[in-house]
């Protein structure tokens, strides 16, 4: 089973959600800024790599967790992926897409543009972290909800 956390640039919110999911970031407190710097792929995705699914790890249920940047074109990229995999005979029940932009703070958005688009990493990266820390528990709730759904799915199967 594969789970894809999707966001605009595949560099901040999707990485945060995947990290909470995999236990790289805590789910009971807001992490320190330095903890974000230690997360793999945080603020790393280049614009030229948008669309590429990046493997983050395997969770306790045995699901493979990926991150993906899709700009604001989820309604274009996801049907393309699903129809292509379906044509190749892949069971679509084996993959899930989760929108990780649910609680995007404007500071994260501005910081992301500064860091990824204009290359102002020293300004943009702290700003993205500040924004994510402000709405951190929204990401924790999202991940908890996803995990509950996965557990229910496993119980059913």
């Amino acid at each position, binding site marked *: 089973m594969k789970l894809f956390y999707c966001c605009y640039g595949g560099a901040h919110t999707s990485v945060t959600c995947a990290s909470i999911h995999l236990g790289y970031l805590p789910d009971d407190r807001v992490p320190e800024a330095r903890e974000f710097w230690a997360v793999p792929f945080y603020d790393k995705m280049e614009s030229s790599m*948008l669309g590429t*699914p990046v493997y983050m790890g395997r969770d306790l249920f045995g699901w493979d967790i990926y991150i993906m940047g899709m700009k604001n074109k989820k309604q274009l*990229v996801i049907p393309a992926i699903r129809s292509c995999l379906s*044509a*190749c005979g*892949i069971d679509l029940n084996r993959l899930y897409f989760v929108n990780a932009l649910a609680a995007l703070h404007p500071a994260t958005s501005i910081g992301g543009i500064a860091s990824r688009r204009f290359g102002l990493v020293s300004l943009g990266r702290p700003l993205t972290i500040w924004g994510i820390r402000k709405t951190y528990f929204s990401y924790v709730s999202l991940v908890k909800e996803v995990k509950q759904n996965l557990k229910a799915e496993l119980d059913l199967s």
Partner: protein
Amino acid sequence: MSIIYYSFWGTYAAYTMAALRIGLYSDKNLPTEEQISAQYLLCRRFADQPGNLIYVGLDSQYREVYSLGCNRHGGMIVRALCGMNKIFGIDSLQMISAESLEGDLPFLIQRLSRLNFIPERMLKKLFRIWLERSFKKCLKAGEKKI
């Protein structure tokens, strides 16, 4: 093995190249009136549904040929599909761009088709002009790719 032709709309240049590939369109003459009407209808119905794969047929080597509309995000979709293929162990997908063959006329046709007062025959005429202009280009590009 599958081949996907992709372009902005997926029903204009990508479909034309796919139709040439499978032999639906002759590589010697322009498509027949019936074929032009059929592709025009396809454009009217599916051009505004990018991201949905359109099955066109099988080529001479029994490979499935599709067309796909990607709007301006062909690169991102190619990376997404190639990434998914790696993840799921599918090694038999070839993606061919038809983006540069589309031109501006399809944009005009699609925009005009949203205006109810534009007569259908005028849109069809524009489509025919586009096909006549692009057919040779598609044929040439197809020969290079094959």
